[in-house]
């Protein structure tokens, strides 16, 4: 199986899984399908000679972010979307934003397709590629050191924000005569 075939296979999995993510109502399945999609993207990264990104994709996205999603879904025991509405109204006849949004998505697709096919064919990828972890690390900690620091501040802020937002309101002490 050549790497060409693998591209089409992984691409198909990614698209199929992503479609399924937005195509059904159970959030748990959505999360799991998205992980499958990420797995396929990770494969694509390997095809692009970026094994480090591929592994990081699994560790960070699948191993951390998606676990967080799964956690929240389980914690809230997230209800399926209200189904009576779906049964009553055909998807194409739904209220403003939904219909409009889908139309916009289609328009965006058309535009992107147009933009990408408009230019010349770029041909295959060149030979040289940077896949060494050391090279990436060196660049990350020298050329991008400022960005790196800013990102770390962002993470810190997000962490504090998440803790504050998700914290349960401190319960008011009950009055003594009222058990």
């Amino acid at each position, binding site marked *: 199986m050549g790497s060409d075939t693998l591209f089409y296979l992984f691409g198909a999995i990614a698209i199929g899984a992503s479609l399924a993510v937005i195509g059904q109502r159970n959030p748990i399945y959505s999360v799991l399908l998205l992980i499958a999609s990420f797995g396929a993207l990770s494969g694509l990264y390997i095809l692009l000679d970026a094994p480090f990104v591929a592994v990081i994709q699994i560790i960070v996205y699948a191993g951390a972010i998606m*676990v967080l999603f799964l*956690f929240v879904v389980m914690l809230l025991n997230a209800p399926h979307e209200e189904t009576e509405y779906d049964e009553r109204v055909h998807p194409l006849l739904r209220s403003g934003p939904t219909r409009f949004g889908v139309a916009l998505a289609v328009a965006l697709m058309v535009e992107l397709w147009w933009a990408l096919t408009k230019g010349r064919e770029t041909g295959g990828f060149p030979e040289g590629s940077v896949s060494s972890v050391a090279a990436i690390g060196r660049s990350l900690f020298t050329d991008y050191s400022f960005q790196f620091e800013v990102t770390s501040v962002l993470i810190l802020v997000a962490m504090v924000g998440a803790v504050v937002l998700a914290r349960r309101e401190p319960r008011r002490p009950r009055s003594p005569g009222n058990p």
Partner: protein
Amino acid sequence: MSAFLIAQIVLTLFVFVMLLSSAAVMVYAERKVAAILQQRMGPYLVGPKGMLQPLADVIKLMFKEELRPRAADAFLFALAPMISATAAFAAFAVVPFGAETTFFGLLNEPLRLQVADVNVAILVVFAIASMSVYGVVLAGWSSNSKYSLLGGLRASAQMISYELSYGLALASVLVMANSLSLSDIVNHQAGTWFGVVPRWFLFIQPVGFLVYMTAGIAETNRAPFDFPEAEQELVAGYHTEYSSMSFAMFFLAEYINMVTVSAVATDLFLGGWHGPFLPASLGWVWFLLKVGAILFFYIWMRWTLPRYRYDQLMRFGWKVLLPIAAVNLLATAAGVLYFGI
């Protein structure tokens, strides 16, 4: 097909079978060691000295009825044990367990005793370890039972928490070896200091080793960190509702995970297949011995230490182990920078 490819396929199948049987050996060993520690007999009826006991267990499990709670999510309920078992097997794929060999001249070019040689192997191990959370979480959620759910949540929280220390311990080794490839890391530990002390990272990274082992025990949900399946509180945790072969898969995954953690520890800290007396082609004997020693340690721990309390576990993970691991990594980095190892 070249002989090399055939050898590779045979090797892969061989590793698979060996992992399966290692689980059986581990079950037997666990019961025997426990019995010895508690001054009992342990299994002795089936086969000589009860050695066929694991086989009997497997047969018993296979013939049991596959039960599924009515309110469970059928698909995920079936998927969860598969994820667990697959992740357990997959991680071992990148673990090398012997030097390159031509099998006494059978092959034209030397074959590395490793299913897949990836140059970011250490990260792959880490990635797959992080994927194994899903099996546990999904099992807990899909069973639709409060014990299972609590077990699943505990397991995932615990695994995520200890993954950080685990990762930092890995990082301190790879900083020293200057490579992400497990084979390179092992080869970095070849030879001895002063002709006596082997150049294992264990001696440069004792703290890293301790952190790795502690986090490894927590990652595999073994005693004294076996909260997800704390019998007294949660019946059996995330696999309460499982029976027959799906239960067997969880069981299998637990033992194979232990073997993987031990094998990775051997490669990272104990010099892998390097050892005195034996020729390089028999290095795997050393490898098996070292893995066996760590596994024995695992079993010993389980039957010696009482279980912690859950909050103690989390506090230990975040407030003790993680800072130690982080400081160790910093110190290692400073040392590497200063001494230019």
